[in-house]
């Protein structure tokens, strides 16, 4: 099988409404021969299609809901799958409206790369739209690689001069966010120029097509090379041959590796024990690594429970952390309320002690002193937790450095959080 070599690339679209995100995804799938003929037929007969006679509205490949088609907008993320011989792709089409930012954050949290689209014909003196900045900010905050696509080049007659203006603006945005050397590709999502294959429409453009850029991303860091982290999902009781029942811990290795005989630390007390067995359904392993779902047995009765994390020797816990938050709930933050912080499999009572700053999306400046947090705000906060949580930094370990806040009254997911430091 070629499976051994295929790498997984998860892409999310980003950028303002109507800049061509859904059309681009449809175009990528269409030109990669990832659409089935009945799906193409369904597109050509689709109600509400915006395409001219005989043409396809490719945005409908992912805008699959009735109300999305009727309104000509994307409301929620759609997931599509396709593979080239070297790469298997998950493409996630996100909505551009500010109102649906939480859905974009949902899509981005499940992606490795963001394609931030800009409509080349709608910039005034190079000024980017607020949503373009917001989405680029979110994508970068969530640790995604950012690639820019300057779309609708046909509407500016593939003018190199206009492209360069947009490019300048995108480079300025990148510098202010700390994105280094982003690829910036001029495209026409509707016709496919520079999307899958490089087009002769822009002889001045020397770079690769958008799909090539996406495919040739650097590999990044192997999660197996990070410190060992294992959030316990459930405790397994097996009545072995011995008199006492044996307890195992079922879960998925978030990062690092583990071998039989390794010393691990259990929970915030960091009680040490050794791994005695590593089991899957039908195998006993001597070693396992990031991504694998296994059951671990320890030499001592350590009394771990769901929510505890088994870690390698390098780990620290804290009661107070500094974290980036994307507020996702219609209900604004209520300083009197407690929120559950869900990190790995743990759910711990917490409260936001203070808002250090909120980002102003117009100029990306950090606004201090505002003690309100509402829908779509991106903020830096100080959190206090009832019991200590693992203090992994999101940029070092996205698996354990990420958390969500849940409003225990409504059960809504109120915020996405990323640990930046301890107090």
């Amino acid at each position, binding site marked *: 099988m070629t*499976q*051994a070599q295929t*790498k*997984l690339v998860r892409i999310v679209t980003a950028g303002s409404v109507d800049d061509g995100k859904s059309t681009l995804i449809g175009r990528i799938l269409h030109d990669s021969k990832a659409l*089935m003929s*009945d*799906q193409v037929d*369904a597109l050509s007969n*689709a109600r509400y299609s915006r395409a001219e006679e005989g043409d396809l509205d490719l945005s409908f490949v*992912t805008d*699959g*809901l*009735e*109300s999305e088609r009727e309104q000509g907008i994307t*409301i*929620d993320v759609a*997931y*599509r*799958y396709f593979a080239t011989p070297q790469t*298997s792709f*998950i493409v996630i089409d996100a909505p551009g409206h500010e109102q649906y930012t*939480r*859905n974009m*954050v*949902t899509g981005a*949290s499940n992606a*490795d*790369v963001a394609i931030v689209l800009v409509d080349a014909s709608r910039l005034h003196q190079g000024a980017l739209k607020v949503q373009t900045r917001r989405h680029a900010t979110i994508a970068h905050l969530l*640790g995604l*690689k950012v690639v820019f696509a300057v779309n609708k080049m046909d509407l500016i007659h593939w003018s190199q001069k206009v492209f360069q203006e947009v490019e300048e603006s995108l480079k300025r945005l990148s510098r202010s966010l700390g994105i280094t050397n982003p690829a910036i590709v001029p495209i026409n999502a509707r016709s496919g120029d520079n999307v899958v294959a490089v087009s002769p429409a822009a002889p001045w453009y020397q770079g690769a097509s958008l799909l090539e850029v996406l495919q040739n991303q*650097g590999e*990044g*860091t*192997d999660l*197996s090379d990070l410190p060992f982290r294992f959030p316990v*999902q459930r405790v*397994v*009781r*097996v009545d072995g041959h011995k008199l006492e029942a044996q307890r195992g811990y*079922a879960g998925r290795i978030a990062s690092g590796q583990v071998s039989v005989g390794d010393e691990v630390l259990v929970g915030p007390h960091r009680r040490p024990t050794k791994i005695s067995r590593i089991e*899957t*359904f*039908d195998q006993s392993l001597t070693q396992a690594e*990031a*991504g*694998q*779902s296994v059951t671990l047995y320890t030499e001592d009765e350590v009394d771990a429970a*769901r929510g505890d994390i088994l870690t390698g020797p390098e780990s620290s816990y804290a009661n107070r952390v500094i974290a980036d938050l994307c507020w*996702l709930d219609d209900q604004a933050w209520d300083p009197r309320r407690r929120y559950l912080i869900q*990190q*790995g*499999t743990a759910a711990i009572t917490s409260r936001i002690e203070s808002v250090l700053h909120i980002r102003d999306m117009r100029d990306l400046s950090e606004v201090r002193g505002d003690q309100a947090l509402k829908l779509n705000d991106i903020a830096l906060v100080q959190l206090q937790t009832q019991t200590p949580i693992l203090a992994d930094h999101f940029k070092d370990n996205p*698996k354990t450095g990420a*958390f*969500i806040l849940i409003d*225990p009254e409504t*059960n*809504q*997911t109120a915020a*996405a959080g990323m640990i930046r430091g301890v107090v």
Partner: protein
Amino acid sequence: MTFFSRLLHLDRLESEAIYILREAAAQSRNPALLFSGGKDSAVLLHLALKAFRPEKLPFPLLHVDTGHNFEGVTEFRDETAARLGERLVVADVEASIQRGSVRLASPTASRNAAQAVTLLEAIETHGFDLLLGGARRDEDKARAKERVFSHRDAFGAWNPKSQRPELWDLYNGRLQVGENFRVFPLSNWTELDIWTYIEREKIALPSLYFAHVRPVVRDGDYWRPVTSVTPAAEGQEVERRLVRFRTVGDMTCTCPIESDASDIAAIIAETRLSTLSERGATRMDDKVNEAAMERRKREGYF
């Protein structure tokens, strides 16, 4: 900086599904696993064994039975549950018809859409708060929009315009009383992934999935099976064709495709070359309307 795991494709999907199954069991009071005997639910059940053995499964199997099953599927369902020693709950659409909660235009009308009613009745009767299903995002454009943990309100309805955010793999399984979750561990699997996994794991399937000779009639693009509930119409020519099923659903809306693929390897080869989507090639229930699946899901369907 981006991060990656070096697990192989199928191992990654398998491990993710096991993780989701364990989250679903840990975060619910009274879950059930939808098991119809079809290939996706057979894969889901196999993954559940991997997630929970040597313990018993922490949930019963649930089948919403239209009573219009192809030959061998009910037997396969019952034998599988018996072999594994797991509890099987069957919710009959027929019982809903008797109760009057399902009214059909005619006795032989399709019972496919009625499944939502029977499903919701089963949820209420048994107090299920979470149902594991084998649906995949690549099946349909409405499914492509759905969360892994898909929240349903007190009426069992899916509201695609206000889904809960779903960040990373941190699933929030919290509910108010009366609401439920549908959880889809195979969300990120494609049809080809399913078949290559069935091959690798040697998962047993009903014989219908393999090429066999069957009486069919031509109906537009489909070969419609001739069965007790879908007899040939007056003057329709019944042909005996070599066919197999790509999906197994209700007899009134599921069609086979012409194929001589008699083993999994041949099915995989065919799947790789297919130019028709799985549901497009086989499901008449989706052809009724462009948004057929979305509308069924809004009403509480899987």
